[in-house]
């Protein structure tokens, strides 16, 4: 149900942020408000919502990567004690073709989890097995299997072909000429395997009907935008659906919709007249809960005597699942783009579920498969990678060369680059262990999403806000409270922030680092205009102009003169009987003094590699990140730590492994789908880059950027350590030893 509000919002403003040094809350560390509830188990996630008389449902996932369904016999399942309802999904009717392992076929709702699971095990399905293909890294095999199709690409050359010249031939010759003229030529193969979202709270919901109204407790990144999905599928109106998500156990771009299993839960609930909880099992979460496309590339590039890349020629391939896809060509090569380039791509269809947007879609893979080639220029020259990256900032296409240069200096100092650097493969070994340094850099938008907020000031001094955003663990709730507290001259504890319900004013989905800007916009706008209304009342009372007043330290006072003042509560009493209520918002893309978009960021890794075992350890890691104005440094840094640690996981451990014959996703459990553990991450240092030039840009999201560079930085550090490129991430011991063996160094 949408929050009722005025269609015509009164014009307000102007809006602004207090200057550095004049803030009481913004820019100062604040512990996350929901921290203790989470740390003591009091926080209720979707999985934790237990409704009276609820059924617990479990689903049968298809065990085959490609098959036809003959039929599903539910009779034995229905007889299992405790089983109440068996639901066959529409896409699993007899004759249906299933194109990936894990696709849900039927759902069993029961009195307990155990009975539901036993019911699922008792379902009998006839499968007709079909050929599958899952080898997305193998371009030749994909072509032979008819699974490859031409993807996007682009050519850019400084010189133009003549009028009667064949364009393709011209480009061939031009690229060949530029490579021939280049002082250094690097030819390489790089790649990164697909990984899964692997949210620790799997996708799912607990739903109940109240008459014709649906209450959905949904694990979602999109509280305000999922009611439509339920409503459309169930043939009801969106205002008959309330979506609630107070806490979400992991959302990195895969939890934007009700999903067909959420719809099915609602149908089963309707059918049985009882609330239903349906969460994916762990293996289902890994198999169908979302994944990041793979990317593999062959590159040939040329660089001048300083290491500046002058020509780039590449072909990359990969897969986003059954529909093909892969890494977008638009971010190849990544950030550092020479004037002359040719990039082409091939899309490969595999028997895996479609990918879902994963933290900075396309960027991490593009960085991993192209900034490794930049580092190989340094290796070919025997030069310092830092200097070669600095030189190639001349190719930065996002206008951030100066920001990167400053961030590189900060990062190099933090990791003591000069003292630890040695040419690739020339470091001193301690026993079988060699160390190395590597770096990479990234970019992202982080524009503020659309967001509305209602602020209420009560005559007793209470302050409350309502906004249909969500707390992903990024610190959103705390940021909302800090913005209100700053505006009203109160403490964070004085304000109550309400989020996580679709009954509140609309706020956009949390994806693409758009939330901190969104909620900062809506909460600042609503609170600044609410304060103006309150100052008008206070001015009359105090006999001064409203423009002379400020809210500071729990008082409404004449600026700089605490003697002429009202306490916050006294000022609020002037409201009389009725609370002051102001709703304001921001529309994505509108110019604003409060937020903007476009960030850089530089990361550096210091690794140790044991050349006998192939084991890589991250010793130290430095992340330098700009994100405009920082509201809460503590949770801002936590985002960066998190991005880096996810990146360490994808660098060293994480990969979706498919059996090439059966197409089965063989490591879909946490025991075998390896993530980084606390002993694996080394010492991580985070530096927020926030000079005045950044701060005056306003708020920009930083959820995605820090997750982009780690794989390239770590790959480059490994190459620096062992003098050999390990081509494809994750850089497992097996792959490290293979690379050493191929180079004749083991």
């Amino acid at each position: 149900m949408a929050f009722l509000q005025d269609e015509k919002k009164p014009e307000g403003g102007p809006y602004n942020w207090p200057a550095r040094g004049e803030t009481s809350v913004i820019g100062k560390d604040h512990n996350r408000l929901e921290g203790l509830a989470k740390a003591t188990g009091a926080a209720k996630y979707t999985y934790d919502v237990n409704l009276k008389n609820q059924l617990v449902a479990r689903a049968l996932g298809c065990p085959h990567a490609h098959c036809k369904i003959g039929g599903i016999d539910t009779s034995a399942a229905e007889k299992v004690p405790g089983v109440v309802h068996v639901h066959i999904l529409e896409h699993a009717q007899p004759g249906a073709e299933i194109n990936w392992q894990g696709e849900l076929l039927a759902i069993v709702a029961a009195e307990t989890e155990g009975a539901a699971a036993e019911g699922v095990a008792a379902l009998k399905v006839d499968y007709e097995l079909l050929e599958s293909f899952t080898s997305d890294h193998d371009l030749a095999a994909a072509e032979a299997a008819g699974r490859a199709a031409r993807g996007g690409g682009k050519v850019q050359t400084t010189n133009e072909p003549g009028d009667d010249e064949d364009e393709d031939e011209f480009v061939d010759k031009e690229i060949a000429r530029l490579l021939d003229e280049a002082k250094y030529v690097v030819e390489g193969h790089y790649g990164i395997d697909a990984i899964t979202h692997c949210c620790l709270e799997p996708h799912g919901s607990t739903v109940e009907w109240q008459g014709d109204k649906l209450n959905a407790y949904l694990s979602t990144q999109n509280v305000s935008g999922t009611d439509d999905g339920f409503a459309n599928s169930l043939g009801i109106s969106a205002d008959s659906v309330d979506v609630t998500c107070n806490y979400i156990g992991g959302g990195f771009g895969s939890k934007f919709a009700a999903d067909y299993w959420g719809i099915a839960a609602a149908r089963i609930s309707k059918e049985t007249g009882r609330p239903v909880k349906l969460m994916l099992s762990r293996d289902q979460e890994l198999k169908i809960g979302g994944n990041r496309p793979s990317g593999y590339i062959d590159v040939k590039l040329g660089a001048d005597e300083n290491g500046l890349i002058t020509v780039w020629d590449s072909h990359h391939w990969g897969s986003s699942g059954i529909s093909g896809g892969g890494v977008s060509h638009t971010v190849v090569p990544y950030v550092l783009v020479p004037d002359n380039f040719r990039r082409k791509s091939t899309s490969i269809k595999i028997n895996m579920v479609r990918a879902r947007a994963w933290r900075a879609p396309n960027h991490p893979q593009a960085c991993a498969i192209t900034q490794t080639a930049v580092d190989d220029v340094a290796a070919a020259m025997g030069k310092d990678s830092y200097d070669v990256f600095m030189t190639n900032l001349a190719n930065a296409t996002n206008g951030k060369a100066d920001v990167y240069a400053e961030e590189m200096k900060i990062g190099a100092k933090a990791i003591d680059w000069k003292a630890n650097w040695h040419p690739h493969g020339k470091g001193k070994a301690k026993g079988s262990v060699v160390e190395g340094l590597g770096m990479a850099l990234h970019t992202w938008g982080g524009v503020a999403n659309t967001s509305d907020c209602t602020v209420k000031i009560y005559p007793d001094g209470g302050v409350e806000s309502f906004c249909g955003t969500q707390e992903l663990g990024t610190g959103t709730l705390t940021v909302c409270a800090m913005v209100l507290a700053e505006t009203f001259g109160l403490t964070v504890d004085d304000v109550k922030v309400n989020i996580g319900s679709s009954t509140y004013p609309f706020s956009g989905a949390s994806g693409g680092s758009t939330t901190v800007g969104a909620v900062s916009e809506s909460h600042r706008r609503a609170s600044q205009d609410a304060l103006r209304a309150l100052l008008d009342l206070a001015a009359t009372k105090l006999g001064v102009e409203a423009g002379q007043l400020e809210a500071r330290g729990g008082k409404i006072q004449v600026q700089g003169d605490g003697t002429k003042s009202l306490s916050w509560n006294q000022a609020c009493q002037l409201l009389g009987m009725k609370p002051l209520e102001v709703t304001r918002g921001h529309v994505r893309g509108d110019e604003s003094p409060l937020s903007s978009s476009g960030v850089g960021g530089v990361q550096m890794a210091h690794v140790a590699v044991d050349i006998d075992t192939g084991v890589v350890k991250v010793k130290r890691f430095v992340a330098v990140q700009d994100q405009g104005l920082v509201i809460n440094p503590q949770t801002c840094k936590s985002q960066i730590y998190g991005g880096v640690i996810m990146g360490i996981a994808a660098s060293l451990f994480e990969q979706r492994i498919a059996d090439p014959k059966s197409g089965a996703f063989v490591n879909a459990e946490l025991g075998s789908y390896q993530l980084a553990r606390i002993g694996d991450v080394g010492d991580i240092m985070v530096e927020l880059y926030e000079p005045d030039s950044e701060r005056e840009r306003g708020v920009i999201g930083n959820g995605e950027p820090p997750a982009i560079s780690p794989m390239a930085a770590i790959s480059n550090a490994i190459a620096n350590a062992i003098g050999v490129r390990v081509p494809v991430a994750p850089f497992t011991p097996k792959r490290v030893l293979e690379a050493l063996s191929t180079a004749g160094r083991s």
Partner: protein
Amino acid sequence: MSDSHNTPIDQDGLDRRSFLKGSGAVAAATAVHAGTAAAAGEATGEVEKGWKPIQLNVNGEQVTVKVEPRTTLLEVLRYQLDLTGAKPVSSDGSSGASTVIINGKPHVASTTLAISCRRKKIETVESLGGENPDAVPLAFVEHDAQQCGFCTPGFVVAVRAFLNKNPEATEDQIRAGLNGNVCRCGTYAGILAAAVSVVKGGN
């Protein structure tokens, strides 16, 4: 883990071995808890099956719950006692998200049969909260050792159990001792700082 060396008939009148025997086939058919199926053994025969009341000591309180042989401690905590701090993350126990303390030692509740917990002292993350929270969750807040928070209760309990046993733990020992838990958001830097601060504070 087994308590079968104790008196075979408990105060709730249940012989654990015969109870388990009764549902071997049922437990084996349960896909979610592969580990518990193995624990149930391969015995067959109509001895005891279905739901039976047992008594458990949870967070200092004696409670009566109903269990089947296959019922895990995690299911009992979450569905019968509404103690939802311990989380269901992995079916093989490899995430540590359902860590609870049983007789002073950390155990994964998702792979622990409820019936094996009789006459043992079970402490869940909720026992570390309340009006006077334990030093570990407070340190998690102070050092922002959590993001989405779904792994956090398991981590908090694991840190508490580890520091109870190793009150003077060094940073390296903490890194080595907490590898049984996993976090997806990447909060390890904060967790490490939180655990170190608890050691320094002597709590």
